[in-house]
């Protein structure tokens, strides 16, 4: 197992996985507590449209996913604020539009797209130095945002209406939270791919929130658990020669099931 660490791609994969766990644990805690799993799933899948745009116009698919993810998080957020009764329909449609757009643009682009599969299901071992730099930047941005707006995000997550009466800009903070979900998706893209993002975004926090009260503790331990899943899953996939993203997700899901047995 130790010999795997000699390979640079394995080391990069490990670092990438850890960086992804940080954003995942922090933002995932909001996603689980505020119960916005579905809209987050919509945002993460819609990001695939951005990957297609990147391919088609010849720029980095990750940047494409970032721009398109932010755009669709805004649309879905607006839909959920303004058209409550149609919220889930609109999210479902945008979810599918993003995926379809991605497939069509990739098939139209003349360039060879060998790693289409890797954007759908991740390929942690192809993480490059440049990816890691982007991930560090995104982690930093998410961390700072949550520190600056911690009490407001807590208040609007717990009781939107009261926060509105207190004069807080509830719509802004809700959209900002979804924006952070889009950033987290981009961080996770290389690691587990668009289809599995929602699993890693929710599972660590879902396990931890069964045992802890405070949002800060849930964030902290979710990050730790996410790091553990990444490392254990990566080594497991290396030993058994399995796809890494799916191995990490299955391992996390197994722990989630076990945790349900020990729930307080």
């Amino acid at each position, binding site marked *: 197992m130790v010999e795997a660490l000699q390979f640079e791609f394995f080391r990069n994969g490990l670092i990438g996985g850890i960086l992804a766990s940080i954003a995942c644990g922090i933002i995932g805690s909001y996603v689980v*507590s505020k119960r916005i799993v579905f809209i987050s799933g919509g945002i993460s899948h819609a990001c695939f449209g951005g990957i297609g745009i990147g391919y088609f116009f010849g720029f980095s698919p990750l940047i494409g996913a970032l721009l398109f993810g932010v755009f669709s998080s805004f649309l879905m957020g607006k839909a959920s604020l303004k058209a409550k009764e149609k919220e889930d329909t609109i999210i479902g449609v945008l979810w599918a539009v993003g995926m379809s757009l991605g497939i069509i643009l990739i098939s139209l682009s003349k360039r060879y797209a060998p790693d289409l599969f890797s954007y759908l299901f991740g390929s942690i071992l192809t993480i490059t130095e440049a990816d890691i730099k982007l991930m560090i930047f995104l982690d930093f941005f998410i961390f700072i945002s949550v520190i600056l707006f911690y*009490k*407001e995000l807590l*208040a609007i997550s717990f009781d939107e209406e009261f926060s509105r*009466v207190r*004069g807080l800009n509830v719509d802004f903070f809700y959209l900002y939270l979804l924006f952070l979900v889009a950033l987290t998706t981009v961080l996770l893209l290389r690691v587990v791919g668009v289809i599995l993002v929602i699993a890693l975004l929710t599972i660590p926090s879902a396990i931890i*929130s069964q045992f802890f009260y405070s949002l800060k503790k849930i964030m902290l331990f979710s990050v730790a658990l996410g790091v553990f899943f990444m490392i254990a899953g990566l080594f497991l996939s290396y030993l058994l020669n399995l796809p890494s993203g799916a191995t990490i997700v299955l391992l996390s899901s197994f722990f989630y099931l076990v945790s349900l047995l020990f729930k307080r």
Partner: protein
Amino acid sequence: MNENVIEIKGIYVKLGEMVVLEDINLNVKKNDFLGIIGPNGGGKTTLLKTILGIIKPYKGDIKIMGETPEKGREYIGYVPQYVFFDMKFPITVWEVVLTGRLNRTKYFKNYSKEDKDISEMALKQVEMEKYKNKKIGELSGGERQRVFVARALVSQPQILLLDEPMANVDSPREKEFYELLKKLKEKLTIVLVSHDIGIISAYIDKVACINRKLYFHDSKEIKIDDLMAVYGCPVDMIAHGAPHRVLKEHG
């Protein structure tokens, strides 16, 4: 002193296409303790939300302390309905009360010493200081209601608005809760809404009935006609069953 803290003149409110409030007129005076009763779906919560400026009337005028609801709501401490909360949410009593101190001027800042002192005092006032570090979901209905009152108090309001405050309070605890409101009444104007006629008790000074229209005589008196109009049901049960008879003989 006859100052109106809430002044509602002929407002009409639509939710979607449906008119839910029709020609509502209501003046609430300083230090009133007003109970608004009406059946579910009668527009009680909509009226509160209109007072808070969350919903806008399409006709009529509403003033809170002489200002528009958007401005005037800073004078209001709001205690929303129990059903709106997710009791699994990871937040402690202390954190909940502190959120009552938030407003736009607190962006990018931590809670100040003043915020914490005021929150501490509010928790004492509702006798919940021992529960400070408990998770909100661990409390009983009555305890939780006290915490939400504390959260409303920390903004140092002039008016306290409560939506179905007794909905999840055990009956033995109800009296204690009313005692708390009675204490608060010395400094505040209190408006509470409920579908439950049982709230008309010795503690409440004035009663209004609402079901799309509002019936109010600036007193505790309800006319049987009003109750018939609002509830559309036999009212002798109410008149005889209530602990304090409030209905006068008709005629």
